[in-house]
């Protein structure tokens, strides 16, 4: 029998309670994702003083303000770029990025692919609710085909991004996806991402009930969460429920995990070698040719 000696997880220990009530709509999946993140942080024993959370613009971007840590709510699409500077300058910090599907894949898409390629130690949590919720419900790069939004009144006819496939193709060394219906699984995935010694991309399939759900008549928030299980993302329940899988099924869990040099570490190692080389030449009295 495993005896868990860690103190029980109480989400309030990690929240800025003075910021409550929060601004998320009733039924929004983002709160579930936030709880799972804080739970994983608790399990790993990450010091709140050494935790930096960088977030962009949109509903997901607002979450950082509720976390009792060093939090940075930056410009639209740029949290990965801000986090890159912060993590390179302060390798002692644990840097987490919270972003949304529009923030990360549309306006910030360039930063995502290069963060995947660079492999700096960052955990990027992308909350995908298929819509620009904050601005009133416009189509996003992950909106499913034929869905109604305020800017696709005829139904969305653009194909949507598979964010995890994109991240993996761009070279991310850790890629995973999970649903908000399954909180312990989500927590485990985020935990694995936080522990990964490199860039970790975690997509959370979240639900926007108030705007996207209402517009598309997807039912109550509870019904939307249940649809994750029964209709939309059934492979998340591959091992728990006997459900016929649809062709547009999105795989969940850890999808990619490879070992390759972490950028910050590799840079610091090369820099230390250069310094040693310079010092050796200086002590040997080598006259350097002018640069």
């Amino acid at each position, binding site marked *: 029998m495993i005896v868990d000696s860690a103190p029980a997880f109480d989400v309030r220990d990690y929240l*800025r309670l003075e*910021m409550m009530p929060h601004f998320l709509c009733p039924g929004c999946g983002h709160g579930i994702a936030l709880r799972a993140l804080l739970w994983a942080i608790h399990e790993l024993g990450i010091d*709140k*003083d*050494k935790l*930096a959370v*960088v977030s962009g613009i949109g509903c997901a971007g607002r979450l*950082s*303000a509720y976390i*009792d*840590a*060093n*939090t*940075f*709510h*930056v*410009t639209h699409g*740029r949290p990965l*770029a*801000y*986090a*890159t*500077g*912060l*993590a*390179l*300058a*302060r390798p*002692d*910090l644990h840097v987490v990025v919270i972003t949304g599907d529009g923030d990360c894949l549309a306006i910030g898409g*360039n*930063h995502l*692919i*290069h963060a995947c390629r660079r492999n700096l130690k960052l955990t990027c949590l992308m909350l995908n609710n298929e819509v620009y919720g904050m601005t009133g419900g416009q189509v996003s790069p992950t909106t499913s085909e034929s869905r109604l939004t305020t800017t696709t009144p005829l139904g969305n006819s653009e194909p949507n991004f598979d964010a995890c496939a994109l991240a993996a193709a761009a070279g991310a060394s850790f890629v995973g996806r999970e649903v908000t219906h399954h909180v312990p699984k989500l927590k485990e995935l985020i935990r694995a991402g936080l522990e990964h010694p490199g860039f970790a991309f975690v997509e959370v399939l979240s639900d926007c009930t108030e705007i996207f759900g209402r517009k598309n008549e997807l039912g109550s928030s509870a019904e939307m969460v249940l649809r994750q299980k029964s209709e939309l993302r059934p492979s998340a329940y591959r091992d728990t429920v006997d459900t016929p899988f649809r062709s547009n099924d999105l795989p969940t869990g850890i999808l990619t995990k490879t070992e390759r040099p972490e950028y910050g570490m590799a*840079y610091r190692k*090369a*820099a230390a070698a*250069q*310094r040693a080389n*310079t*010092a050796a030449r*200086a002590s040997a009295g080598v006259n350097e040719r002018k*640069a």
Partner: protein
Amino acid sequence: MNAADKALSPKAAVHLISGNHACALGAIAAGCRFFAGYPITPSSEVAERLSRMLPEVGGVFVQMEDEIASIAAVIGASMGGVKALTATSGPGFSLKQENIGYAAGAEIPCVIVNVMRGGPSTGMPTRPAQGDIMQARWGSHGDYPIIALAPASVREIYDETIRAFDLAETYRTPVVLLYDQVIAQLTETVDLGDTEGLMRAERKWASGPREAYQPYASGDDGIPAMSRPGAGYRVHTTGLNHAENGFPTQNPEAVARNLGRLLAKFDRHHDTIDSWQTLSCDDAEVLIVAIGISARAAARALDIARARGVRAGLFRPITLWPFPEKALREAAAKARAVLVPEMNAGQLSLEVERILGGKRVDAIHRYNGDPITPAEIAQRAEALAKEKK
């Protein structure tokens, strides 16, 4: 001084270096330990130099995926407490503007080098211009204060790079270092033997108990103390309008109070922020106002004009924004006419007209990539002097 510093320190006092090289040296001397940039003519030499120099002093250089990512990474590094720099030219400067506004609003120190080339758009990448004077001041949306410095020689780029960091750290603000392509790629004899006296400012860091700390409290001087991540304060930083506690607010009183403090931030500090040079202004009947390569031409034009009996003087703002208004008014007090030679279609002249309201302000506006010559300035100054007699 550690071994790495020694390796970079001047072996002799006199050097032959380019403006962009001087900027890199100045940054290292100022304590800059982070650079993020994106290749662009004619500023790339700053990045190339720092890619070698920063690892020598334990700093970090990173070439980002675009101009926006570069300024974002720089602000991110500075949020972590590290002095940070980026360098670009017109097109990149335009792309960085939203995030420069973020740095101004959230009060994150950083230094942005903008080497001015021909514009608009891609313009003339290898030819000089001075067309970003107004963009340096007004480039981002909304109301915000900013400092811009305009060095005119290689040595001055070194000094002003150091001062840019000092002002950025002291006043928690982005500082733009604005110089033209000529000065950037000019190689000049510079004496770096007397740089010991240059100021090295450090950020005002938060101290005391967490409960009593307000990240945007005015303090004695209008400049809030910043908290370093890891020091236990765990504050929130946002581009949304915020109250003294750092959290977003739309309360009109709180917004007016905090934004009001921000907008007035430099008002009590003109003594340390303002900087300018005057040449032969005491008896000047024609006052020339210029920056960068145009000011270098004007300096030579003074003697040509005076040899022809025209009493010309030069006022050269080194701190361009906030503009040293009082000093300009004093320098122009006796002048009957003012001449502004500049490599754009009329930017500095607008500001000079505004400050000197009513005085005759003439200008040479050049935007074809050819620097304005001393002879042209002298000739116009002479014409102005005659016009008045």
